[in-house]
Each structure stands twice: as C-alpha cells, then as structure tokens.
C-alpha cells in the first residue's frame, strides 16, 4: 500500500525494535484512517477547482488547506538550488501564533477575573469559571477577526491567482488581544477590513506592507471610536454575564488602567501592588497585553527560535527604560522608569509588534536604532502628552514609517564605501 505519511526514515529517532510493533500499529492506523482519506479527498477535489472547473472560485481556499495538510510535493526548478531548508513562512507564522498563546490564555482568565472583581464576587469565583467566561468573551472576537481578515486574504489571493499568504494568521490573533474586551464585534470587523485592505493588500500583501496591520486595526478603532477604546474607563472590564457564566455588576463600574490613572491629576506614584499585578497581569487593559510573565514566555520562544530579532526587542526595552529614567530625573512624571516597561502595551508591543520583520528595520544595525526610538517615543508620548496615556501603538506606527529611512542610512553607508573604493582606484 502506498503510504501517505512522513517520508520513510522520518520517524522519531531512538524508536528501536522494542517499540516496533506498537509503532507500526499506530502508524498504520494513522495512515489508513486519517492520511489516505484526506489525501484522496484533496485528489478528488482538484479537478473541480482547477482552471475551468466548476468551483474554480475556491482554488485559493482548497490550496490553502491542502498546503497545510501536506507539505507541497513541488520540487525545485532547473536553474535554482536543488535542495531547500525545511523552514517556510507557514512554520514561522505558526510559531509566532504559539508564542502568543500564553498571553492570550492568560488574557482570557484576566477578563473573567476583572469581571468577578467588578461585581464584587471575586471570593466565590472559581478559576475555571473565570477562564471560561473570558474564553467566551474573547472567542467571538478571534472568530470575527479571522473570518473577516482571512476572507479578504482568500479573495485577494484568488483574484491575483496567488497562493494564500500566512501573514494574517499572526495579525488575526494579535488583533483581538490589543482591543478592550468590550469592543463591539461590528467595530472590530470594520477595522479589520480597513487594515487588511488599506494597510496590507494594496501594498501587495504580506512582506510588502509598511505598517503593522494589527496596529493599523487598533489605530483605526482608536481614532474612529475613541469612546469604545479608552474614554470613560468602563471599556476595560466586561460587566455582563455570558451564557450564564460571570457576573453582572450592580452599578456602572469604572476601572481605569494604571496608565489611565497615572494620567489623571493628583497622581503621586503607583502602589507596589499595582506593579506586582501588572507583572502577573491582573490589571484592566487590552485582552492580551496585561501579563508580563505570559508575554515573556512567548518572547522567550520567539528569541530561542530566532524568529524575533533580539536586537530590536532589547533596544525597545533599553530605549524605554532610559527615557523613563530621564523623565523621572527631570521630574516630569511620577512613574518610575521600570514601571513603564511593565505597564500598558509596552511589553506586548516590544515583544510581538516591534519585532515584526516586515515592518521593522531590515538592516542589523538599523534594528538597534529602530528599537531604541520606539522605546523613546512610547515613553515620551506617555509622559508628555496628557491626551494619550498609552504611547506604544503610536510609537511603533511612527517608527514603521521611519524604518526604511533608518535602513536607507545604513545601506547608503555601504554604497558610499563602494563608490569611494571605485574612486580611489
């Protein structure tokens, strides 16, 4: 029988003869009941979606799913390198999604926690009760974000006769994580559509965009519906029950984010508990951005796999800390320098958004400058602009714009060196 599974010799090493029978059994079941039918299914569908087929309009969709199910069997063409590294953008993007999971799962829990806290039922709320409440509050946002975003991507891919690009897998999960839990779904849908079309697809898709699509989504919401994004501080906490889970707050409960508090008059510095909670993540805020520990777990994965540049990530923190220290020394703020790094979206932005390879600086030296400036501007906005308690989004978007200018300087240095060498000779 023809085996549709791993190529031979691709099995787990060290599985000696002792486990052979067991191994053989599992693999055979796997092949017979899962692999062959799926492969056959795709083989059967193919004629319908190819050029001239009845369902040609779904080619990109079928292609997308098939390349996820099976590594494409396409081999390299004559005239290009004959062998390739196993890495591809699917793997890279999937790993970013995995890195985002700790922050997402914690965010779900925190949504439930804040709900219970608001209703004054923290004592009798269970862990799982709070988690499932948050899960149900967040899941619709994830679905809306993916359905709208991927829908547009699939359509564009079909229209341009290209393969589906995986970039939105990451954006689609980041977007629900950087909005308040009360953000209405229709707003989210409009914002996602706006950003996928105008920030990404018109530039040519993943790899060609200037601005981070997830941040454009947030910026769109932020400027179009300010009351739903910050405003009167009721947006950060879900205050209703969902399918019988959670609690309904008795009165209108207001809970500002710590940064929101800090922006108000009469602020004299945070209590140590606030900072502790900011590190664990039990503070009001956007769904995924609150827990520094969860973000650090994801950041660690990104750094270990080399997907995110440590240069960018480190310099954002260094830039933020240095500016925070300067502001503190100048007496402009009561927020201590390290508090900037754990509050609001700073850590999330530094780990997941600033390091986006497409929109960040591409030269190795440029990454330091790019990161330092993000940290600098984020803290600058937080401290000096009373209108915006949070500056991370604006800082990253601004530097997205300037990333190519930074690169230009470093590339130009190389060009000048070459021109000079030619002139001497």
């Amino acid at each position: 029988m023809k085996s549709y599974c791993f190529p031979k010799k691709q099995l787990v090493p060290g599985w000696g003869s002792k486990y052979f029978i067991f191994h053989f059994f599992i693999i055979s079941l796997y092949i017979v009941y899962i692999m062959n039918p799926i492969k056959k299914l795709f083989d059967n569908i193919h004629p319908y979606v190819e050029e001239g087929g009845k369902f040609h309009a779904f080619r990109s969709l079928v292609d997308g799913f098939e390349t996820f199910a099976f590594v494409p069997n396409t081999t390299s063409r004559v005239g290009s390198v004959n062998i390739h590294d196993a890495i591809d953008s699917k793997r890279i993007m999937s790993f970013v999604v995995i890195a985002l999971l700790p922050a997402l799962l914690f965010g779900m829990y925190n949504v439930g926690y804040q709900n219970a806290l608001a209703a004054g039922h923290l004592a009798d709320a269970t862990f799982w009760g709070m988690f499932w409440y948050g899960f149900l509050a967040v899941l619709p946002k994830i679905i809306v974000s993916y359905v709208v975003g991927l829908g547009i991507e699939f359509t564009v891919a079909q229209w341009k006769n290209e393969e589906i690009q995986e970039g939105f897998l990451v954006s689609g999960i980041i977007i629900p994580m950087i909005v308040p839990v009360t953000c209405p779904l229709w707003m989210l849908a409009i914002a996602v559509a706006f950003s996928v079309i105008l920030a990404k697809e018109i530039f040519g898709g993943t790899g060609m965009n200037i601005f981070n699509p997830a941040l454009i989504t947030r910026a769109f919401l932020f400027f179009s519906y300010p009351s739903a994004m910050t405003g009167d501080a009721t947006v950060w906490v879900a205050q209703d029950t969902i399918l019988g889970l959670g609690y309904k707050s008795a009165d209108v409960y207001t809970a500002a984010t710590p940064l929101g508090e800090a922006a108000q008059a009469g602020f004299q510095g945070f209590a140590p508990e606030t900072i502790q909670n900011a590190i664990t993540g039990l503070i009001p805020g956007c769904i995924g951005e609150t827990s520094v520990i969860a973000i650090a777990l994801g950041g660690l994965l990104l750094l270990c796999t080399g997907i995110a540049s440590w240069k960018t990530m480190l310099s954002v923190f260094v830039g933020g800390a240095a500016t925070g220290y300067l502001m503190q020394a100048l007496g402009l703020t009561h927020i201590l320098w390290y508090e900037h790094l754990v509050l609001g979206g700073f850590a999330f932005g530094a780990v997941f958004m600033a390091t986006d390879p497409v929109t960040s600086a591409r030269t190795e030296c440029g990454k330091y400058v790019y990161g330092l400036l993000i940290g600098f501007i984020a803290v600058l906005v937080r401290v000096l602009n009373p209108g915006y308690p949070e500056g991370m989004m604006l800082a990253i978007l601004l530097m997205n714009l300037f990333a190519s200018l930074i690169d230009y300087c470093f590339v130009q240095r190389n060009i000048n060196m070459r021109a000079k060498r030619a002139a001497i000779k």
Partner: protein
Amino acid sequence: MAKVIKLRKGLDINLRGKATRETLAVDCPGEYALMPDDFCGVKPKVVVKEGDAVKAGDALFVDKLHPEVKFVSPVSGTVSMVERGDRRKLLSIRVKSLTPSLSKGEGEDSRQFTPPSEGTGEAIKALMLESGLFAFLRQRPYDVVANPDDKPKAIFVSAFNSMPLSQDFEYVLQGQEAEFQAGLSALAKLAKVYLGVSAKQTAKALTEAKDCEVNIFDGPAPAGNVGVQINHVCPVNKGEVVWTMGAEEVIFLGRLLKTGKVDFTRTIALAGSEVKAPKYYKVKVGQKLTTLLNEKLTVKNEKLTAENEKSGAGSVRIINGNVMTGLKTTAEGFLGAHATEVNVIPEGDHADEMLGWIMPRFNTFSTHRSYLSWLFGKKKEYVIDARIKGGERHMIMSGEYDKVFPMDIYAGYLVKAIIAGDIDRQEALGIYEVAPEDFAIAEFVDSSKLELQRIVREGLDILRKENA
C-alpha cells in the same frame, strides 16, 4: 606566509553520501556532447557539420561576437548530431568517439598544438584561444565567458569548493601538481593570479604555489566560491574586469603546455545519498552520464527512463554539477563543461509529508531553530530531497541572506533591486561583484523560497545587455 582570511558568515550543509577517496576509471565509448548553455553569455556559431571528422582540440562552435574564442571537441571522432531546440537554439553538438577505451590508456589521435617557447602573455592567450581553453575562463562582472579584448586586473583560482558533496580538489590534485603549477605560471603571464586555498588544505602544491598570491580562507560555505574570495582580496569596481578559472581547468592548461594536446579528463566526485558507493571517477568533459551512473545508484537502471521521470516512481534527481548550483539532468544527459561532481539526491515529489508546518521533523535539516536539527550537532548527516518545502512568498524575514553571505554586500537589498529592475541601485549595491552561485546558500536558507540564483542570473543578463 600566505594571508589567512577568516570568514564567519556562511553555512556548511552536511549531506549524506560524500565521495570516499578512491578513484575508478569509467569507459565511455560512444557519444560526447558539448553544450553551449554551459558557457554563459556566448552566442554560439556552429563551425562543423554532421558527419565531419574532428580531432580532440578542433573547434565545434565559436562565439559569434568573438570568433577567436573557440569551443573545442573533447574527443576525436565524427560529429554525430547538431541538436537544436525551439527557435533553432543550439542545444548541443555531439561527437561520436572513435577510440573504444580511453581509460585503458589507448592513445588518442588528438590535434597537436605547439606550446610557445618564449611564453609571453600574448602567446599564451593565443594558444588558449586556439585550443579552447580560453572558453573556460570566466569574468566578473556578469559571470560569463571572458572577453579576449579585456585586460583583466587579476585572475582568481579557487582551489577548493566548500559546497556540500563537492569534489575535494586536494585529492584530485595528487599526481598532477606539476601540471597545476604549469597552468598557474602560464596564467600569471596574462595577469596577476590569486589562488584561494582552504584552511584545511595542506598540500604544498597549493599552499606554496609559485607565480601567484596564495590566500587562505577559513570559514564555512560559500568560502570556496571565487566570488567571495575576490570580494575579500581585490573587489571588482565598476569598469574593472577580473577573470576566474576552475582549479581543475588550470590543470587542463598545464597538460596542454606539457604535451601539446587537449585533454579534458577530470576526476569528478559521484556523490549523494542515492549513490550506492560514492567515489571519484576519471571522466571526460561531455561524457554521457549513462556510462558513469550505470548500476551505481540506489534505483535500478531501467527505472531511470523518461516515463518514470514523469510519473515520479521512485525517482532520483541527477544533478550535473553540485547540488547547490548544478542543473537537473537525466541519465541520458552529458557531463557539463564545468561540472566537477555529479550529485544524485532523492526527488521527493511523492513524499506527501503531512502537517510539516507543525511536526517536529527530527530528521529534517534546517538552520532554523524551530526545528531541532541544531540539537543533533554538525556531525549528523542528512538526506535532503529536491522539494522546495514551502510556497514562494515576498521577502518576509530580514537578515536571512546576510547570515550566509560573506561579502560586504546587502544581499537582500541587492536582490530587491534586481527584482525591481533598478539598474543604478544594482550597481551601487555591488552587483558587479556577484555571481548566481554566491547566492546558492542564501537560496537554500530562504524561508520565502525565492529563486535567488535565477533572479541574479537574469539580472546580470539584463545589465550586460544594457551596458553593452
């Protein structure tokens, strides 16, 4: 003492099936072929007809623009076929050999040249042009066959190939040291010769070669690429020309000077995971591969047919040249003019590997840390098939190419300039210094799966046309 140049960037790919140091001879009665496509940038003009008798060293075709550059027959015999493709493009000229068994030392009735006694640069050049050896000189910029009217500022020879499964030149050189030195000395009459030697090579014929400047390169692939060596020793600026020659082709020149005969016998490595016992073989340029591959692959001979090629049943990929830079061919193909090895790897077009994007894939090689191959160390040998293993995307990750591109050139930016067709920017970013083969490792590691070598080749061709 030779200068040691340490290179940090690059990547050594450890593939299974390296050739052991043992040389066998292969008989090749029958057809030989010379393919104009092996000589980049040449407009071929055929100077023989089918049925003509030629001797080894007689021209088969010449360059239309420089008729003095001749491309000569590797064997004596009769021209059996002038093969043309679409729009009468010349594909190959085949010569049927008269000598039944070359390997048994049977003398061949080659054309006799008279090596110049005084050995001036002009005389050497004239001999090389007439004997077809000039055709083996390549030039930077553009990586095409050298133009005899140019005055090169240097000639570069790399004595090692750092790509996986490549020929070990130090081993090939054994017993041919005198010819190699004679070739180098002759080249030195044309321009200053630089010899690039690997830090692992200890043969005196290399490290203490005369009439040339020896530079020792210590680092991973592509340190053996002559382009990398030029970039570190004597970079090419706009308007300058550097010639390069393969190390084994320098031996051809030495042989010619010694015997007055053209002898394109190479010791090539037949290597790769699909070769039963990878070894070295003495073959001639243009030899039919069937004779070389006969019963030496893991797949049966009868399976290497054209039908199986299409259906992909148990198919292997036979590569004319190195696995990183060579062209896919068939068992019916002929050994390329510049090929120093023939690599055979699995084609993999029927692998149907499931959920590759998330599986651990322990036995898969990757430079990326999301796979675990970095845990198994550098000693582990891998079998890599010819699949691309992903879809082509725009350039997403940054700095991927630069990690394996040991020149002071922003590889990613150069590739983008070539894609965009911006000639001024290509020049500014250093396109004159590169050849497609320099991008081979970058193309291997690229997660966006762009065909860098093809992009660079096309870019160079366009640039050459524009500058002509």
